[in-house]
């Protein structure tokens, strides 16, 4: 096996700056240090990325209230809710009103045919 040529002391004359020099490339590849990664390194990186992307929790803990308030302030939601409430109230009112009228009419009929002294 042929031994490598002896190294010459580095000076201004023998500095090789040619990036295509095969010997230089071999030397650089051999000198590259590849440190070993700590265990679960990749998982840790992804966890930190996810934590950075997530919104910061508020200190009051009212995020659901904020979300609900934002929902309530949406015009479509507000209009739909108001419509449902008005219709439901009106239906209930009509039902109650008609029942009261029916009871009044029943009481009026009874008053004519069955005097209070007999009931």
């Amino acid at each position, binding site marked *: 096996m042929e031994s490598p040529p002896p190294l010459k002391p580095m000076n201004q004359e023998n500095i090789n700056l040619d990036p295509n020099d095969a010997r230089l490339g071999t030397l650089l590849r051999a000198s590259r240090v590849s440190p070993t990664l700590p265990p679960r390194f990749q998982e840790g990186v992804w966890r930190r990325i996810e934590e950075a992307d997530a919104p910061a929790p508020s200190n*009051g803990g*009212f995020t659901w*209230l*904020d979300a*609900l*308030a934002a929902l*309530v*302030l949406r015009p479509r939601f*507000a209009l739909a*809710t*108001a419509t449902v*409430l*008005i*219709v*439901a*109230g*009106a*239906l*209930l*009112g*009509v039902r*109650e*009103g*008609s029942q*009261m*009228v*029916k009871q*009044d*009419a*029943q009481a*009026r*009929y*009874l008053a*004519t*045919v*069955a*005097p209070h*002294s*007999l*009931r």
Partner: protein
Amino acid sequence: MNRSLVILLGALILCAALFGGSYAISRRVCQNCMAKSVSDLDWLQQEFNLNDAELARIQKLHEGYLPKCADMCAKIAAKKSELETALNGSTNINPLAQQKLTELAALRAQCQAQMLQHFTEVSQTMPPDQGRRYLAEMQRLTLGLHEQTESSMSGSMDHEHHQP
């Protein structure tokens, strides 16, 4: 105070106002509209699904019954007045008051019998199912109160009897 909380509370109050307002207005409107055309027999026609011919027959019976009912009511009122006179100033039930009580009870029984007879006649002019329902409803409404009172009183007396 949290802004979101204020918004939600305001929304809740607004919702309650909308619901309550529409409920109150519709109930009032419904009562006003339906009460306009109510006569004594409207309840019968609506409740027992009577047609015009059936209603006309009942109307005739009703008009025939009202003077008799008024006459009985006048007799009962007069007898009550006599009873009050007999009881006036008395600390005991004297024989005259006892007699007036008996006569008043007899008049009331006569009036009730007349009323039940009218209910029976009215029920016979209706379709059979509706007639039975009408008769049961009238008996419940006119006689049921007495039954309730009597059963509650007898129940309380039993309770007292069982006490040591």
